[in-house]
């Protein structure tokens, strides 16, 4: 009986250890978004995006604080957080996905990441083309994609509709490090 317990305990412990070994973390990933219209260009950066990649399972998870986006003007920050994203209700944006046909040994590859993006309490399936680099065992992911404002139930008052693009371009770059527990 005791042996079985010991075995179970050990196997759990080993499983836990191996999963941590196959993970890498980026705590200071960068996500930027751009809205270009003839009236106004809006740009915001978030340099504290958290991401964990599990390269043995080809899984990736991303989480960011909406209030950590930095704008050029305070008014943009206020509108973004209070009227559009409603950061008090939905403080984070999340992404969870799987890298399709991921080969963990290649130094450079371009793959599609399929997953769910949650912004403003709305979850949507999305596919993102991503460049994956491996340098000295550490991964770097970067890419660009577009989202539609209306997909995430973000209401923009008609008076400001000409200031904000219907399609927002999003850029990201994550530099991973080994995940030490």
């Amino acid at each position, binding site marked *: 009986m005791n042996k079985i317990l010991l075995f179970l305990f050990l196997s759990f412990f080993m499983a836990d250890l191996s999963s941590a070994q196959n993970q890498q*973390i980026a*705590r*200071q990933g*960068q996500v930027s978004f751009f809205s270009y219209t003839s009236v106004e260009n809006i740009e915001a950066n978030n*340099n*504290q995006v*958290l991401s964990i990649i599990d390269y043995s399972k080809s899984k990736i998870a991303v*989480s*960011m*604080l909406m*209030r*950590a986006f*930095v704008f*050029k*003007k*305070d*008014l943009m920050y206020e509108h973004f957080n209070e009227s559009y994203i409603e950061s008090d209700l939905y*403080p*984070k944006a999340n992404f969870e996905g799987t890298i399709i046909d991921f080969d963990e040994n290649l130094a450079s590859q371009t793959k599609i990441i399929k997953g769910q993006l949650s912004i403003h309490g709305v979850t949507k399936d999305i596919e993102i083309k991503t460049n994956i680099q491996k340098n000295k065992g550490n991964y770097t992911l970067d890419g660009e994609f577009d989202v539609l404002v209306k997909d995430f139930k973000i209401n923009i008052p008609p008076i400001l509709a000409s200031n904000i693009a219907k399609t927002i371009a999003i850029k990201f*770059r994550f*530099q991973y490090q080994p*995940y*030490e*527990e």
Partner: protein
Amino acid sequence: MKKSENLFLLIAFLLIAICTYFYVFPLLKNSNEPLTKEVAELTIDANLLVKSFAIDEQKSNELYAGKIIEVTGTIKEITYYNNRTTIILNHKNRNTFGVICDLNHTEEKKSQFLKPNQKIRVKGICKGYLKDVILLNCSIEVLTNE
């Protein structure tokens, strides 16, 4: 008659000036300026801050998020990803948690002389918690190691 007209114009002008000062200037303001002159709402130890967020994130958000706070702690590392200088403060028990302090550009010169395990005080705007507590627009002050 002429006098009252002038008076009216003067009042109108004053009103416009006051409105501009209070309503238009704030719209153009950019608060990515250093916080050196601002007074922090509270001072807290880095370990306590992380612990507080780890125990009850929602309550801690109400207490700290959006406020200017001062955090004392020891430096774990200094990073330079994406052209930003960032100081990460240690959490004494858990290696994976800490406080991420994104420095204001004007403070970057000071950070050259910092070393890991040095004790510092960081003033910044608390944004919330992911795996670490995040402070933006930080200014730093070196403390003597006790």
